[in-house]
């Protein structure tokens, strides 16, 4: 009986620990979720690939500035970044972006191709839904786009990261 009670207590301890672990992680002040979308622009019709999705929201309007007829969302990732921290996010087998949350809604973005740094000069404010679009030509007169925005999951009431001294 005593052993059963101990096991019961242990299970509850693990559940409580998980809860507080998640809650603790979400409480980091100034932490922001950033959304990274990989988009493919082409003049061809939609290929028979269930992974390709229609664009939605303001992203559709941004893509209309470019010359291609059709745009498909290939992949979407969301990362959480507390101020001062950086994360590398793979966007394809050979390409990844490194995001650093500078402070507030300001980010530094580095682009890596085949593990080598391609561009390190990108410092942008993603405030007010403003996107940073990294793009390039691809084979068969198509193009790729990496669209980096703040995620709509961010709580607008939450204060942004404090300024660094």
């Amino acid at each position, binding site marked *: 009986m005593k052993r059963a009670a101990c096991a019961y207590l242990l299970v509850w301890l693990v559940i409580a*620990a998980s809860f507080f*672990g998640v809650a*603790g992680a979400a409480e980091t002040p100034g932490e922001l979720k950033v959304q990274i979308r990989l988009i493919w622009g082409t003049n061809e019709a939609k290929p028979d*690939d269930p992974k390709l999705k229609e664009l939605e929201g303001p992203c559709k309007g*941004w893509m209309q500035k470019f010359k291609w007829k059709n745009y498909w969302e290939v992949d979407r990732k969301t990362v959480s970044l507390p101020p001062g921290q950086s994360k590398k996010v793979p966007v394809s087998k050979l390409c990844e972006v490194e995001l650093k949350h500078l402070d507030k809604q300001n980010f530094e973005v580095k682009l890596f191709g085949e593990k080598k740094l391609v561009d390190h000069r990108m410092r942008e404010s993603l405030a007010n839904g403003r996107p940073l679009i990294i793009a390039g030509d691809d084979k068969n007169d198509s193009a790729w786009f990496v669209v980096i925005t703040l995620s709509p999951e961010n709580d607008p009431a939450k204060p942004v990261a404090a300024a660094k001294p």
Partner: protein
Amino acid sequence: MDDLKAIKLQAYLDGELTGTEAAEAAKWLAGDPAARALATELENTIAAVRGIGPELKLPESREFYWSKISREIERTAAVAAPAAAVLWWRRLLVPAGALAIAAAVLIPLAAHYRQAAEPPLAAGTHSSTYSFYSEEGNVTVVWVHANEGGTANGN
């Protein structure tokens, strides 16, 4: 003429292109009357505004530059906020919780990456970039250009 070509022409006139890119732009300019007309217009504009004021170039976008000013203003006016009290036992529970959920998160995550598509993207190692800002759309675009000898998709 599409916007990208126009921007590239502007970069060429501003002396921002080098090597193969500059040679390509010069060749294109020589053979395309529309490009020459735009180049003349741009050169006239450059000549008209030259000398009006000092040319100041910022290494960052204007939003980022302004945010630095804003940060400095806030820093000088800031009153240190009291740090949130964290119970000691909760500090112990955070790593324990992280361990408990790590297995649940990492296993499906690893499976996801194994199944992930191979999008048609890989910036080549022989690339150059140029960026432009659309005021109308409030969008910054960084275009990665694969030079000869490299390829944008790595294939």
